[in-house]
Each structure stands twice: as C-alpha cells, then as structure tokens.
C-alpha cells in the first residue's frame, strides 16, 4: 500500500515536471514548481523522512516560490519561444547518457533493503548510541548538530555566502555601483501614501 502511494506520487511528480517543460506562462510554471516541491515533501513523509519533508515544504514550496514570484515581477510573464534544434546527435547523446544512468541504478540495493550498505556503516551506531553519547531523542538532530557539526557549519557558511553574494550583486550597498541606483527615499514614500 505504502509502495503504491510512493509510486503514484513519483508518477505525479514526473507529470508535473513534463508540464513545467510544456507550459510557457512563467507564473503557471512557478506555481507548478511549488506543487512539485509540495508533492516531494509528501513523498518524504511517506518515506519517514519528516525532517527533510519539513525543509522541502518550507524552502521548496514556500520561499522558492516567493523568490520566483519576486523575480517574475522584474521580468516578463511569458517564456520566449525558442527555435527547437532537432539534431540526431544530441538525441543520441541524451539517450546514451540516460541509458548509462539507468544501467548504473541496476547495482543499487533494493528499495527498503535492510542489508543495504548505507545501513551497515555508521547508521547502527547513530541509532544505538546517540542517546548515550549526544542525548536528543531526535537522532537527525544529533547527527546534524553534533556528529556532523562540521558539515552543518559549512552549510550555514554557504547560506551566509549566498546572501552576501546576492547583496554584492544587486543589493544597494553603502558604497559601490548599487548606490547610484537608489531611486527612492523614505520622505518621498510617506508623501506618496498620504
């Protein structure tokens, strides 16, 4: 039953992905991407990965959609039609790459296999000992914050860098070229509202 739900959601996600490719209206595409993320979040819940589902729902379906809308308000609502290039060599390259990727998955352990390598390495120690070693009942928190503290610090630094990069590229800094693009100030705005 659970397997059927998972497979059904995967097909639904594939259908949404095809729709994203076909639809030319960028507002509709943004909404479809939000739906895709929400379906992915539901899929993670079905796979018992609630922490990942939580992140996917908040970031993928929430913030990303809003950021896309913000970008959309700066650009046009319709995707430009492009000349479709149909070259047999490109098709062959895509088919061969796809075939090789599918061939690569044949080696992977079966879905839910308890003897899969990922469940043999450090996972048993996390499950059995994290209560005595770290404490929190949520093992995911123990791994992310303590066992893998370095990784999480790197992730936070990446987010910091992303925001700093956005600020440097298009932010109105205290100095630099952004300063010249200043087109408003508070006094004007207040006068405008009243």
């Amino acid at each position, binding site marked *: 039953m659970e397997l059927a739900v998972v497979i059904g959601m995967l097909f639904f996600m594939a259908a949404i992905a095809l729709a994203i490719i076909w639809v030319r209206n960028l*507002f509709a595409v943004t909404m479809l991407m939000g739906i895709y993320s929400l379906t992915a979040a539901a899929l993670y819940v079905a796979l018992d990965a609630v922490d990942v589902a*939580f992140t996917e729902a908040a970031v993928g379906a929430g913030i990303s959609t809003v950021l896309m*809308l913000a970008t959309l308000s*700066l650009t046009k609502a319709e995707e430009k039609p492009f000349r479709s290039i149909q070259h047999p060599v490109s098709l062959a390259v895509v088919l061969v790459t796809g075939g090789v990727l599918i061939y690569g998955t044949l080696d992977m352990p079966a879905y839910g296999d308890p003897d899969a390598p990922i469940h043999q390495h450090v996972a048993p120690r996390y499950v059995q000992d994290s209560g005595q070693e770290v404490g929190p009942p949520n093992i995911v928190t123990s791994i992310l914050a*303590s066992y893998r*503290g370095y990784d999480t610090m790197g992730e936070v*630094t990446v987010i910091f860098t992303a925001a700093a990069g956005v600020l440097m590229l298009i932010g109105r800094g205290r100095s630099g070229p952004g300063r010249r693009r200043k087109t408003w100030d508070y006094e004007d705005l207040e006068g405008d509202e009243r």
Partner: protein
Amino acid sequence: MKEKPVLRVTSKLLIPPIMLFALYVQFHGDFGPGGGFQAGVIFASAFILYALIFGVDVARRIVPAWVSRAGLSIGVLLYAGTGVAALFGGGNFLDYSVLAHDALHGQHLGINVIEFGVGTTVAAAMVTIFFTFASQSPHDPEDLRDEDDDADFDDDFDDDLDDLIASRTMSQGLSQAGGAGGREAR
C-alpha cells in the same frame, strides 16, 4: 494596499502564530522534526508575508538592512564561536561535551546554541535575499510596457488567482520603489 482589507487583516492575524511556530520548531528541534534551518525559514516567511501585503519599504522599516546583515553574520559567528569555546574548554573544535559539567549537558547546550546560530543566519539570509530581489525596479520599464505579454498576464489572471494579488501587491511596492517608471510599466 488600502483596498485589500481581507488580506491585510488575515495576514496580521497569521503573522504572530507563524513566528511562534518558528520558535517552537527552533527550540523543540531536538525532540521532534525541525531545527534551526526550518525555524529560520518559517521565521523569515512571517516577514516576507508582511512585505508581500504591505510592501517592501514598509517592511524594511521593521527589519532595516543593518539588522538582517548583522543577523547574517551573528549566526555564523555563534556557530563557529561555539566550536572555539569547545577548544578553550579543552576539547576538539565543535566538541560540545566539554561545555558543561557533564558531557550530555554540554552536548545539549552546544546543540541549542549552534541551532540558534543556524536559525539566525537562515532567517536573516532569507529576509535579505527576498528584500533585495523585491526592491529591485525593472531595469528598462519601456521595454516591458510595449509587450503584449504583460497585458495578457494582467487580464487573464487578475480575477482568477488569489496568489497573483500577492505578486501584484509586491509590484505595487515595486512601483513605489521604482517611482514613476515602475508605475508606467504596469
């Protein structure tokens, strides 16, 4: 903005529970799903909702640029600082066990502090990125005005989709930000 009373009232009702839920996710992350990252995103979404309804410039008065930029750095500093504190306590970098009188308390303290750092940085980053994007004015308004695409966009979806109201409210904020040029573009 003045003519959208439903959006204004419901958003004002929703924002406090959103922030409260973010704090719950932040400080309950070691018992249930959640943690600093999710909490930061949810906390930022409260400010983003406010900015969508009331305009970016009004929201910027609540979270000025220096606040979000300071939050951005303070989170990373809290995280790395916890690691350095563990060094001074005689352990390895980010080894929280030495932070308190016994290892489990130290771990608990360390995890809470670094999760708070993660939450601060993520919330500040999301607010910064959104506000920076949303306060941009279209680079060449003339270019957009002559396009039929934009007219279709307005006519077809304006009545049907509530979500568009949000983006339009944002573009009202944009046209305020962009002055006359932005308004002509609509």
